[in-house]
């Protein structure tokens, strides 16, 4: 976002004050700052992670978007790029990492596998898309998406950030959105605690 967009809230600045005074709204400057410094989590799952590394490298240069600082710790990151196949063995860790990220947080599902299972969907250890467990903001299709596609997805995240308002932002509200996501359990197969009732009724189904 260029400063001109930031500095046009509909008030005219007197000519003598131009260059020294900027008038903007709180939402705009808040979102401008956030969208220009999204720190992704250094979190590679599979093939897509390699394209994510390529995006960060010299030819595509993620630093142009203020995103080159990849943090290995979820506590310091704003954006989780789910780059690869989400397996049942891995999903408890992904949910835990997501819970550990502070608000505001965003999730980008990179590649066919993270979006919906991809070519490995029918596999017995594959989760059909990370959105079965954590909320996803932007989906980037492809197998793997090219760095250009990932950049496009990241720009969509920036667009989304710019459309938000402090007044309605979820992390300043009380409510179910702020609740932690229950961590899936590894039983005889993956058990989603939110579907426990369904599972109990499915077991009792034939008897009733």
């Amino acid at each position: 976002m260029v400063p001109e967009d930031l500095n046009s809230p509909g008030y005219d600045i007197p000519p003598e004050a131009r260059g020294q005074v900027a008038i903007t709204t709180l939402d705009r400057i808040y979102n401008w700052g956030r969208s220009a410094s999204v720190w992704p989590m250094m979190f590679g799952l599979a093939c897509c992670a390699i394209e994510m590394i390529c995006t960060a490298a010299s030819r595509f240069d993620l630093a142009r978007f203020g995103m080159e600082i990849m943090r290995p710790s979820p506590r310091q990151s704003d954006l989780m790029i789910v780059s690869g196949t989400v397996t049942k063995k891995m999903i408890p860790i992904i949910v835990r990492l997501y819970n550990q990220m502070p608000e505001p947080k965003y999730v980008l599902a990179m590649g066919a596998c993270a979006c919906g299972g991809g070519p490995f969907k029918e596999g017995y250890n594959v989760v059909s898309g990370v959105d079965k467990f954590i909320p996803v903001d932007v989906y980037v299709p492809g197998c793997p998406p090219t760095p250009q596609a990932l950049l496009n997805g990241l720009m969509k995240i920036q667009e989304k950030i710019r459309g938000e308002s402090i007044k309605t932002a979820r992390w300043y509200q009380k409510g179910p959105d702020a609740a932690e996501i229950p961590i899936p359990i590894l039983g005889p197969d993956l058990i989603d605690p939110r579907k426990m009732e369904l599972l109990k009724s499915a077991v009792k189904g034939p008897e009733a």
Partner: protein
Amino acid sequence: MVASSPVSTQTVDLAARFPGIATPDTRPGYSGWIIPKEHLLEVARTLRDELGYDYLSHVTGVDYLPEGKMEVVYQVYKTTGGPGINFKVQVERRDPIEVPSIVSIYPGAEFQEREAWDLLGIRFTGHPDLRRILMWEGFEGHPLRKDWKEAYYEEEIKPYKSRWPEGRHVYAESKSPFADNVAYPAGFDPEKWVPTDPEQALYGALARYQVRDETGLETDHVIVNIGPQHPSTHGVFRAAVMLDGETIVSLKPVMGYLHRNHEKIGERNTYLMNMPYTDRLDYLSSMSNNFAYALTVEKLMNIKPPERAEYLRVMMAEFTRIANHLMAIGALTNDLGAYFTPMLYALEERELILDVFEAVSGSRMMCNYFRFGGVVRDLPEGTLEKIKDLAFERLPRKIDELDRFLSENEIVRSRGIGQGVLTAEDAIRYSATGPLLRASGVPYDIRRAEPYSIYDQFEFDVCVRQNGDIYDRLMIRFDEIRQSIRIIQQAVRRLPEGPIMAVKPAYTVRVPPGEAYARVEGPKGELGFYIISNGKPAPWRYHVRAPSFINLTAFGPMCTGQKVADMVAILGSIDIVLGEVDR
């Protein structure tokens, strides 16, 4: 193989050596020997100690459901080169299925036997640490058995009829009562279910180490888990480490966090459908994976690609090796603390190689370029000039530059030299292959030991380094890049004109019944496919001999006695890709 090959092509007659014990496998299309399980250890020991088959390539199980048999297949080679032999043990398919473990003779079988237990439910008696390896403890069933059905099961073989009924698709989720990819055993009651701690067995195994402390003082050791979310584990790898202060006393790799059921899906896919899946095994070197798979199926079909296709294959496979080693060098120096700078240098060159791949195949990473009997596309206009520029001008210069920056670097030398040593004997014992084996002083390169494709027509050296430490494993990658450039240069000069496919391209190929194992010298080591065909459109058994996975067998022993900070560098120097480790 050509007659002028310097390595011996003699195979051993096991029936003459073990009369009444070893019987030749006479099923049509099969080779090798069948050994009764009581004599397995005796035969294996003789093969290793007397006949010189010191290197166990792979161990896997095959479920012959119609015949009511479970079979374990072993493939052994000599590290001096030449063809290998396989031998099999057949047992009745009734639980508990028990086969003696050969870990005491070939320690490289450790993880592979665990995998066969995990996926096929073959219990290896005498195995030191028989736990599940890819799935978690407590998972129901053994998925690679032919009577085990996944939650989204539709039919045995693709294409599924339900995929496009009258042009409309059906979501797989809609067939499951949980709207998800899960299925529970009959009568599973979550209220009565007692959760088992999946880590318990792991920590139990971790605690079985030999105490070397002779002071008599009682010490407490600490367990540290590194990964699966850790910046230097190259993906979702996890190492559980038992520490005494900063020194590692025992280490157990934990994997399966990227287990994408490659083999189960591969046994439902038709032969051609598997080709793009092989790209996603070792996703840094898709062309090599294609190469090994194409060679295996071509061996079964008994076809040979035309000469131009062979040259294109070799060129692409060698470019893959360069791209992979560049990534390995970048990642290893990252692990040594050079935060991303060498990586950026390496990735710059890798991008140029990816441009070539994109030009020939349409995709940067997942090339899907090889077909049975050739390659899918010829070089587009202008690509040969690009390849020439890379091979003759740019890459040699840039590799020298990167070498100059790194090989004399103080930190690289002090952290690399003498650290994480793997001796030649251990490397062979643990079935290590590729740069890991050659950096330990064993000049074993499949391109020379058992030449495939047209590698016998090229002039190149088998790279070898003597010390087997981290520094040698870094440097041998530079050596190998230089040899790969040499091969590409020769291939560019001699590239013939002609067709690129030996047969008419077809969606379903007819593969005669039989078994085949073909292997290539992949960038990470011996990459092989073991395929059993029963004449149907899909393989009956589709097994990947993944070099990253088997090289990790040596990881624990290499780290024992080292500082925990060096574990990261040792892992980086093995160069694993999790797509291949977990498949």
